[in-house]
């Protein structure tokens, strides 16, 4: 009974099979070890929501320390105990552990696993007209590896020496030497094990997405009729498959250095009162390997968010997405360029200046396809008939933060300027806005928009509105002022700035940031409540609540095996025929045949 077969079943046979047997699935295979893409999608989403809440709580804890260093907070003692929160004061080692795990969880568990896992799984079969993923079994494995990886990552808080604390990039030698700090002991081992499992999950998922998109498109669904969501997931999966193995190798070599005395990353080190034997390795090698994944990784995060946004903006502006082919071209250009820019994280590692120049050039090139995307979104809004669902608000929010954060990337890409702002709060501000906030906005937009397909019900719009307004304001409130901290020379990952008189006049900036962070965290309560409440009590959704063209809305509002009760739909047009002249309805679904003389793909006569 493998999922693989569904794609090849003839439709009638499948249908009959389904009706005759009425086989009741055991709840374990239905909800736990399910191979159905819709269930797996929900599993990814709920896991990601839980992980995001944990990561957000971590951020509030270290933000309290940054705003009011040395102040006592009962909540810190309550959550971290006497070892790490004695008298309510955060321990410096735990501060770094929180920063590290916050970053790792957000980047990998929430915005890679959670975002791609949820929406690639949900939308790829639905939008290309397939009964399920190419391999349901691998898909199931992908989730469970992800789950295991998430559990291990968080479980590090339960061990004596605490979690990894060398920053989410875990640069050796700091991460390689247990003598260097508590966080490089067992916690670091757990980090590496968790990350290795995560990479396995990501590869299983990614390969599945690629194969499914290439092979299981329904009749008429050519590559140039794919919704931009699918294009984004497709390129994202390719990036992941090409880059994650490199991170795995980096992690393996680090495991060797840590546990078996090799010296891939270690050389000439004297620590803990003794000179180590290892010579000949280079810590910089790790950085090359790490960022060879690490930079594509930020596009692995942002591309799916941009894909979701493309769809949501077009549907809700009731207009075709502007420049469909240019959008595909931009996604591909960004995907390609993302592989040749990793060195911009390493300008000041002593890299050959000429090599630095090459990376300046390639990095700044990415701004061109990014600009095209931004302008295309804006033009899609122009003369639209915009319907403000909460999803649409978050999609527009994404465009705003994607622009704001992208622009400061110009500074960081410029090696001469990076010297000054490297590893300061300017960097923290930049990447949080351009990939953190933007990707979270994209993910939230996706949840609001596809909630009817995920849980067959609708979320409350008013709560959604409040959620958006507060989140948007607090996101800028938190990360905008950090640019100023960075330009004032404040380094990131400092537990406390009070040892530096030059930063004394910046205390109130940190207070403001923390207040906005708390507001932002509280705003998520509106979402969490809405999310869980609507699952059970939200009004039942109609089949195509947003008047969309894409195939997922041709499926019945019931989570049935194989997605379509009858034969698979046939596709006759691109997905963006909104408000097409000469047609009364303001949308034409992809399954509607072209009228005589009608051109496809937004072509004019």
């Amino acid at each position: 009974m493998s999922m693989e077969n569904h794609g090849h079943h003839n439709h009638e046979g499948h249908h009959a099979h389904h009706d005759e047997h009425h086989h009741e699935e055991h709840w374990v295979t239905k909800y736990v070890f399910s191979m159905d893409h819709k269930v797996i999608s929900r599993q990814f989403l709920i896991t990601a929501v839980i992980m995001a809440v944990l990561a957000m709580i971590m951020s509030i804890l270290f933000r309290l320390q940054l705003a009011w260093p040395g102040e006592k907070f009962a909540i810190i003692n309550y959550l971290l105990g006497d070892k790490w929160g004695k008298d309510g004061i955060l321990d410096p080692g735990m501060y770094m552990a929180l920063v590290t795990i916050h970053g790792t969880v957000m980047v990998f568990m929430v915005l890679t696993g959670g975002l791609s896992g949820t929406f690639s799984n949900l939308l790829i079969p639905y939008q290309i007209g397939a009964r399920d993923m190419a391999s349901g079994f691998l898909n199931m494995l992908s989730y469970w590896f992800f789950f295991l990886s998430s559990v291990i990552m968080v479980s590090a808080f339960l061990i004596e020496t605490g979690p990894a604390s060398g920053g989410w990039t875990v640069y050796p030698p700091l991460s390689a030497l247990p003598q260097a700090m508590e966080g490089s002991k067992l916690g670091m081992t757990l980090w590496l094990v968790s990350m290795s499992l995560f990479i396995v999950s990501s590869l299983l998922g990614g390969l599945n997405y690629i194969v499914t998109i290439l092979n299981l498109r329904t009749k008429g669904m050519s590559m140039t009729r794919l919704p931009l969501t699918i294009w984004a997931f497709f390129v994202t999966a390719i990036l992941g498959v090409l880059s994650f193995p490199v991170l795995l190798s980096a992690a393996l070599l680090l495991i060797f250095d840590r546990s078996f005395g090799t010296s891939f990353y270690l050389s000439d080190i004297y620590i803990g009162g003794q000179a180590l034997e290892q010579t000949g390795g280079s810590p910089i090698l790790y950085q090359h390997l790490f960022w060879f994944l690490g930079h594509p990784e930020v596009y692995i995060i942002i591309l799916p968010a941009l894909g979701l946004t493309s769809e949501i903006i077009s549907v809700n502006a009731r207009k075709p997405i502007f420049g469909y082919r240019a959008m595909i071209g931009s996604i591909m250009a960004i995907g390609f360029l993302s592989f040749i820019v990793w060195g911009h994280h390493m300008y000041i590692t002593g890299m050959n200046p000429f090599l630095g120049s090459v990376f300046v050039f390639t990095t700044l090139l990415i701004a061109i396809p990014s600009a095209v995307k931004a302008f295309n979104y804006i033009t899609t809004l122009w003369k639209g008939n915009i319907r403000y669902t909460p999803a649409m608000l978050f999609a527009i929010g994404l465009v705003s933060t994607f622009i704001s954060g992208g622009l400061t990337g110009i500074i960081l890409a410029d090696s001469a300027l990076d010297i000054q702002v490297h590893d300061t709060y300017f960097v923290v501000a930049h990447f949080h806005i351009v990939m953190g906030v933007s990707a979270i906005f994209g993910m939230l937009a996706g949840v609001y928009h596809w909630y009817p397909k995920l849980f067959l019900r609708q979320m409350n719009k008013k709560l959604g509105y409040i959620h958006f307004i507060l989140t948007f304001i607090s996101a800028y409130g938190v990360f905008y002022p950090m640019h100023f901290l960075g330009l004032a020379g404040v380094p990131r990952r400092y537990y406390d700035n009070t040892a530096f008189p030059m930063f004394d006049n910046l205390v109130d900036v940190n207070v403001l940031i923390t207040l906005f962070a708390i507001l932002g965290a509280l705003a998520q309560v509106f979402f969490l409540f809405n999310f869980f409440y609507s699952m059970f009590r939200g009004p039942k959704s109609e089949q195509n609540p947003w008047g969309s063209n894409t195939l997922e809305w041709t499926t019945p509002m019931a989570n049935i095996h194989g997605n379509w009760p009858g034969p698979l739909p046939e596709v006759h047009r691109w997905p963006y025929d909104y408000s097409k002249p000469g047609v009364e309805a303001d949308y034409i679904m992809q399954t509607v045949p072209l009228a005589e003389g009608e051109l496809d793909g937004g072509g004019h006569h």
Partner: protein
Amino acid sequence: MIKFLVYVAIILAVLAVGYLVRVFELAQSLKGKRSEEITDKDNQNMAKVMLGLLVFLFGFTIWQLNEYGSKLLPEAASIHGVETDKLLDFNFAIIWIVFVLTQFLLFWFAYKYYGRKNNRASYFPHSNKLEMIWTVIPAIVLAVIIIFGLKTWNKITEPAAAESTIVQIYSKQFDWTARYAGKDNVLGESNYKLITASNELGMVADNKEGQDDIIVKNELHLPVNKEVEFKFNSRDVIHSAYFPHFRAQMNCVPGMTTMFHFTPTITTAEMRAKTGNDKFDYILLCNKICGNSHYNMQMTIIVETEEEYNKWLSEKKPFGAAAATAEAK
């Protein structure tokens, strides 16, 4: 007790929100409409919100520029730093223009084209001309940015002048040590295996070039208007030597030597006068996460006239002499 009350308050708050939603739902269903349909009224309200957010974004920008603009680093105190600052200003000018333009268009369109039941969007799927415009213009602007950027970068990274003063910056968890190359301006050999409590840098005792080297902790003195070439090393993990006032930074990587050179142009005394802060000090800080006390790894830098600098240096004991006295003891 307080804990208990907090729990009660949280539970009550959740219940309250739940009931509010329920009341809202009932009210909607009494009115006979599905509560989640987006009405014209919703669109109109959210259009206003969009305008409000635009005002917030620009207002917040202006407020911060006003409030924080004066808290940034003082003027650059090195030759290349002045150029970096110019480059930074140039890039920021472009960024501000694009930021204001695009955010305005985004939120203005979002405001202006809110949906109305009787309205219809225009069908405008693509325009080669427009797409060409916003491919070519960013490309040109970026070309300019790249050219200016690389010009500055090349200038900063060209090899140091032969007569520049050579200083080693040696890092470990969690402090800095400086070693001046002495009269011969050549740093003596060192080996990490020779490190002991009294030989923190692992200096080779009988190395000829090392005898006149001068090792200093706590304070780094630099002569004004004279190029200094720094050679960075680390004994344990990666650190980063960050000189914010001089717009300089370089990683210190165990197992290799990295380099950076700059010419300080303003003495500490002059900077104190300029900033009106008589406690002002240049500072070297660690800017790469390096362990639990990363946040307090610093060294004061004193830029002074060449005479003052020479006088200060002459009072220090070179490595050879210091080692000899230690042995005599």
